[in-house]
């Protein structure tokens, strides 16, 4: 039977050989990152380095990865510092990276362009997708570093322009390996929170590697799925990131982003003033219009009123005339009646009337009426009757007793 060894012995042997190979222990490898994953629990990075002809598995442990100044991305050309040996369990030849950095701006730019093209072809940058920002947001979600200059700039600008709004800060790492996940969490948390009406993702200026995390495909996709509008402001004017393309609005700097997120208080004050003036003018012209209408009506109303008054007085006059007329007529008739009555009475009392019935009046020589008892013996008098008078002389005067008088009266 031939001599054999176990798999573990083989791998141990191979590893020993490789470990003793000095060049493998101090390598600088140039390659493009692919199949990049960051183990969610351990924090170790696993990826494949490749060039046109070959590839090699690579691992970077958490404590080393934490020191990275940029977020590795698929398609990024990097220089990896480390050693290569065999991973005994799997018999896999792999690189243990101590440190790495992007290799050449051109390479990074190529990766950037590739991702941009890919997302663009998926329609993530479509202008039709861009949503308008709320004109006066009550809450703005801010994804940035709690200690960064960007937050300071945003605070200053918003305090000055529109302090009515509230900032809801999702403090994140904007740099290093943790940055991508941290920013993702921040965006998702703010999108899930009911308060913010828009989300501002920002950080101040830095090197291209510092800003590289904002070219993350995962962040781009998370932003494209946001229910709320997202404003991006990363670095300076000249820095464009994938986030800028996918965001609803890209601002050149954190300060500029703060400006576009809120209205200008002076402008709003001015608008409020104009609105108040318009309302004031409106009520004034309304009043003026009412007065004018009233004034236009006034002469006509006076005329009508005067006509009515005249009419009424005319009526009164008519009635008064009629009543005066009827009153005077009835009074005249009444007086006439009285007169007729009085005439009748007067007629009945006319002493001459009695004469017709055979009575006579005694008159002295002066024509005065005398009673019989006044006559003296020998006196002459005239006895006047109805249609004749007689001259007489008194022979004797006999004064009669009351009984005789009564009797004679009765007889009469």
């Amino acid at each position, binding site marked *: 039977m031939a001599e054999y060894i176990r798999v573990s012995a083989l791998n141990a042997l191979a590893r020993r050989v490789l470990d003793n190979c000095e060049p493998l222990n101090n390598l600088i490898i140039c390659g493009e990152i692919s199949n990049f994953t960051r183990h969610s629990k351990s924090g170790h990075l696993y990826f494949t380095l490749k060039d046109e002809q070959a590839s090699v598995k690579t691992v970077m442990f958490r404590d080393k990865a934490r020191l990275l100044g940029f977020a590795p991305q698929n398609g990024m050309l990097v220089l990896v510092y480390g050693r290569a040996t065999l991973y005994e369990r799997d018999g896999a030849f792999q690189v243990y990276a101590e440190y790495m950095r992007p290799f050449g701006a051109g390479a990074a730019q190529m990766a950037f362009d590739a991702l941009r093209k890919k997302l663009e072809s998926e329609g993530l940058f479509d202008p039709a997708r861009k949503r308008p920002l709320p004109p006066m947001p009550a809450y703005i979600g801010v994804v940035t570093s709690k200690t960064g200059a960007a937050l300071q700039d945003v605070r200053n600008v918003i305090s000055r322009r529109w302090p009515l709004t509230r900032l*809801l800060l*999702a403090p994140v790492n904007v740099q290093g390996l943790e940055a991508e996940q941290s920013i993702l969490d921040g965006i998702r948390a703010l999108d899930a929170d009911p308060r913010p009406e828009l989300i501002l993702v920002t950080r101040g200026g830095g090197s291209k590697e510092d800003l590289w995390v904002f070219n993350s495909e995962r962040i781009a996709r998370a932003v494209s799925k946001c229910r709320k509008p997202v404003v991006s402001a990363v670095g300076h004017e000249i820095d464009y990131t994938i986030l800028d393309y996918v965001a609803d609005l890209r601002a050149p700097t954190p300060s500029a982003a703060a400006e576009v997120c809120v209205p200008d208080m002076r402008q709003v004050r001015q608008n409020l003033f104009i*609105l108040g003036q318009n309302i004031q003018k409106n009520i004034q012209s309304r009043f003026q219009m009412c007065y004018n209408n009233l004034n236009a009506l006034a002469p006509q109303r006076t005329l009508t009123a005067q006509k009515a008054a005249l009419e009424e007085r005319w009526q009164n006059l008519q009635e008064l005339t009629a009543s005066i007329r009827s009153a005077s007529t009835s009074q005249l008739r009444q007086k006439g009646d009285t007169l007729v009555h009085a005439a009748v009475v007067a007629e009945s009392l006319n002493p001459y009337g009695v004469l017709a019935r055979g009575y006579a009046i005694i008159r002295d020589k002066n024509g005065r009426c005398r009673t019989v008892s006044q006559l003296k013996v020998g006196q002459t008098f005239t006895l006047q009757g109805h249609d004749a008078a007689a001259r007489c002389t008194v022979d004797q005067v006999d004064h009669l007793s009351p009984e005789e008088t009564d009797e004679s009266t009765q007889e009469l």
Partner: protein
Amino acid sequence: MKAPKNFEEGVARLQEILRQMQDESTTLDKSVKLYAEAAQLIAYCNTTLEQAKLQIEEIDAAMTKETAGE
């Protein structure tokens, strides 16, 4: 008059008041009432602007991460 919830609602109501006042079918009586309401709203809005001070709150993104999902 119902007090506005916030500045924005106050301004929106003012714009609505102006629109109603410009409508010729609005009676003078109603216009006068709207005018009184507008005066109060403008005072409210100005006071709100004068007293406003930027407030900052914080959200712990890592806490909500679990529910937000990956």
